């Protein structure tokens, strides 16, 4: 083993330590946690997980989060694909300004928008729906998806489009059956980032929901404040929020590195 491979190993250990601690806590009983320090759970318990899977306010939090993240990814990709194509292939009035304006929306602090978002979505009658959170997360996900996809599409030579038209393809057919498959690494990377930023965001998701669409992350803040300090339960809920992300990374693992390299990201 060469000494330089120590660098990633040490880094990964550093990343895994807090995660290990969260997992260890989630298998401990409350008595053991409050009783003092122990490196491993002394008596393993699944009580914390059982509490989550039997309480609808807990497990609906997960379902709600997954629903709005999925809707957000679908909306963002559906809107961003044609727009990115337009930016990569055509010049039109105000295109550069529009592109920069889109990017500025990533710079707006979510804290700035929390209150006006609440008022806006209450006014249009979408407050406490999955769609509200999905649309609101579009604020930062759609510009990002356009940015990433535009990079990938600009890497595809324009001859591909022209050949397809000569062969008699209509635009929708060309776009769906030739163009999108060509940049599927880019679609994977963009969808991954939409999923990621929607899954991890809390402030807007919490502001726009009350009961029906409440995300898991917001349910956790309730536990930390009202139901005393149930660390074990909090840890188990935290561990469960890591799992969907881990599954998604596993599926896109080959696209991440390759995708970044191909695109202009």
């Amino acid at each position, binding site marked *: 083993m060469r000494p330089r491979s120590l660098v*990633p190993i040490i*880094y990964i250990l550093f*990343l*895994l*330590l*807090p*995660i290990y*601690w969260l997992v260890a*806590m989630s298998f401990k009983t409350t008595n053991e946690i409050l009783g003092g*320090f122990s*490196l491993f759970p002394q008596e393993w318990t699944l009580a914390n997980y059982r509490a989550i899977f039997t309480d609808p306010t807990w497990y609906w939090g997960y379902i709600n989060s997954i629903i709005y993240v999925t809707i957000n990814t679908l*909306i963002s990709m*559906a809107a*961003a694909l*044609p*727009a990115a194509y*337009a930016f990569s*292939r*055509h*010049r*039109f*009035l105000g295109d550069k300004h529009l592109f920069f304006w889109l990017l500025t*929306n990533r*710079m*707006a*602090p979510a*804290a*700035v*928008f*929390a*209150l*006006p978002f609440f*008022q*806006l979505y209450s006014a249009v009658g979408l407050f406490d729906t999955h769609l509200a959170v999905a*649309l609101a997360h579009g*604020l930062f996900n*759609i510009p990002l998806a356009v940015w990433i996809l535009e990079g990938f599409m600009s890497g595809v030579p*324009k001859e591909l489009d022209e050949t397809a038209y000569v062969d008699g393809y209509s635009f929708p057919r060309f776009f769906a059956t030739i163009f999108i498959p060509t940049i599927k690494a880019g679609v994977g990377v963009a969808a991954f980032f939409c999923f*990621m930023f929607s899954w*991890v*965001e*809390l402030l807007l998701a919490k502001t726009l929901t009350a009961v029906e669409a409440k995300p898991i*992350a917001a349910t*956790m*803040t309730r536990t*930390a404040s009202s139901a005393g300090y149930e660390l074990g339960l909090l*840890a188990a809920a935290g561990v469960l*929020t*890591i799992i*969907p*992300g*881990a599954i*998604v*990374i596993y599926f896109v*693992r080959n696209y*991440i*590195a390759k*995708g*970044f*390299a191909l695109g202009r990201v």
Partner: protein
Amino acid sequence: MKTENQRAWFFVLPVLILVAFNALVPLMTVVNYSVQETFGNNQFFWHGLGWFEDILRSERFHAALGRQLFFTATILIIEIPLGVVIALAMPRKGFWVPVCLVLMALPLLIPWNVVGAMWNIFTLPDIGLLGWTLNNVLGIDYNMTQSPVAAWITVIVMDVWHWTSLVVLLAYAGLISIPEAYYQAAKIDGASNWSVFRYIQLPKMKRVLTIAILLRFMDSFNIYTEPFTLTGGGPGNSTTLLSIDLVKIALGQFDLGPAAAMSLIYFAITLAVSWLFYTLMTRDEQ
């Protein structure tokens, strides 16, 4: 070559409508609040630019802005070089590449308040792994809820833990796009490791590093959930960053006018720095 085509606007329209709905309406609401005074009862009075003057003169704003700039500068100075070093040391091909990528990407996909809660549990002085080790094994007196220095170090280490992987992924993507022939040519010329880095790897990574620095600047400047969950802005208000202070004013005290004015100043600073940086970094490409 791109062709001139105004009909391309139809392709952009859905994005324009969706983003404008989310961006312009709330932004106008904020602008509206920022020039008015309210005494409750939904009664609003014109206040001109008074709130902006107040905020720009307020010591509280200066202090929060100072802490915010210090935080962003510190994490950029740590995360960018560290990310590059780790990316350089990563294997280029083989079985370990996906393993490294998956493990490194893990922190990026954890909800932000869970990151805060996780670090809270990790650093508890009596039962947290890190807190207990520091206090009982290494004999360092560590308690985040009492010492501002400890709170600051913890917030910064947490951010390094959370986000360095993004820099690693981007830098790594830049590195693997370098053709093998470049390295062979460098070897024939007898180039040192440093000159390979300086004249081959660094220029190739320039574009992705620009993106990494921009993303890290924007996101760290807007950071709210993680430090708030970890320290609540304390002890005292030693870790009250700009957006934590903003939320305190807007939702805690319900001072909509000052909060709105502060939001706009905040947004303007982010925009200006990002634009300046973007222009400087991409100047050579034109």
